[in-house]
């Protein structure tokens, strides 16, 4: 049973606190939606939860059945779609997916399955540099999910998608919640329903 526990979490850049004293617990099978205006720290909070940056104060613990996990164990648990976590433009969609599959020791059959799932089978041999922003987001979703992570962290997952794409994200989030945790940072009020819990950052907090 996977659980995320954050206690008195705070992040400052220099002397400016982005947020302080954030405490929440996300149990398996649920979703958390992080809301707030631009610059309120939504993406930074996701990056903290991924271990890409360290909190200024407080603790983040990913645990399974009550046992805290080490950073190298957490890595295989997480899949993330973040704005500063891009696919390689000089590689094809398939090569990007194979890289992630190789890094996680996943069977390469999953690569084609996930490309089909996000509607990119036709573009699998196309260079990412030729992709539209919507196609790139679909690829990032597939790359985040190819190793079947228990926790999925998404930053503005529907921002660049058409209605069909929004439907896909909705289905993926529902599936992910059945097997683990979903955490979404968003400005879009239509995404609020993805989480049983909501956190508001910034002035409205």
């Amino acid at each position: 049973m996977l659980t995320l526990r954050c206690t008195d979490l705070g992040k400052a850049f220099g002397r400016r606190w982005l947020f302080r004293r954030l405490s929440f617990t996300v149990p398996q099978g649920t979703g958390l939606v992080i809301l707030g205006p631009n610059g309120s720290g939504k993406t930074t909070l996701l990056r903290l939860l991924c271990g890409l940056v360290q909190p200024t104060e407080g603790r983040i613990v990913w645990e399974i059945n009550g046992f805290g996990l080490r950073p190298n164990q957490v890595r295989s648990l997480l899949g993330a779609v973040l704005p500063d976590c891009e696919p390689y433009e000089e590689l094809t969609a398939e090569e990007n997916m194979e890289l992630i599959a190789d890094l996680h020791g996943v069977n390469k059959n999953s690569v084609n399955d996930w490309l089909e799932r996000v509607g990119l089978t036709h573009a699998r041999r196309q260079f990412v540099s030729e992709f539209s922003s919507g196609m790139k987001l679909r690829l990032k979703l597939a790359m985040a999910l190819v190793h079947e992570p228990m926790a999925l962290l998404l930053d503005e997952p529907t921002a660049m998608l058409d209605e069909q794409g929004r439907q896909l994200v909705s289905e993926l989030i529902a599936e992910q919640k059945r097997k683990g945790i979903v955490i979404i940072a968003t400005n879009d009020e239509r995404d609020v329903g993805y989480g049983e819990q909501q956190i508001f950052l910034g002035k409205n907090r």
Partner: protein
Amino acid sequence: MKTALRRPNWLKQVWAIAKKDFLSEWRTRHAVVTTLAFALIALTVVSLSVGSLRGEPTLAAGLLWVIIFFATIVALGRTFTKEADAHTDNLLRLNAEPSAVFLGKMLFNLVLLGLVAMLAVPLFVALLGVSVRQLGVFVVAIILALVTMAALGTILGAMLAKVQSRIALLAVAAFPLFFPALAASLQVTAMTFGAGLESNMTPLKALFAYAGASLLGGLLLFEEVW
């Protein structure tokens, strides 16, 4: 649960990262072209200005290692800069062990430097009329120096990837770190260009020890700078 605690094969991660870098480089040819261009231009200028260096083993060895040092700086500067500029570095941070990133990148750097050395060193020997007495020792010294520079350069490249004026800083920061390897390589090279190593194997042993220490240090410390 099985999925959650899946432990990926470390060697497969190393190879996946190196393979990705080889493929990227094959498509763009940026690092190879800039490094080779630098080495060839430097070689041409040196050979035009000094002519033959037969009978000048120390000067010849010094010039060779100046060219190799700066070619290395040009090559290593791009390894992590490219990742940081394209925002792909976090993709590696999220999906791979730091030590696997280090070794994968180092392997790529080593092959790149090896390619440059394979072209530049024979050209240097031919253009400047230098004779190599102990080819085996000479080649081993170059390989050990390149391993050292690839290992230390990979760590420095990661540290400086997000810093402005990174190439200039890399050259400044790399010199004191590379110095022991450069000094030992210089000695071995001068000996092989001159009378030979005879019984004095100390610089070669020092080079071997420094290459091993750089590799091990990189594997252990990379996580702290990544």
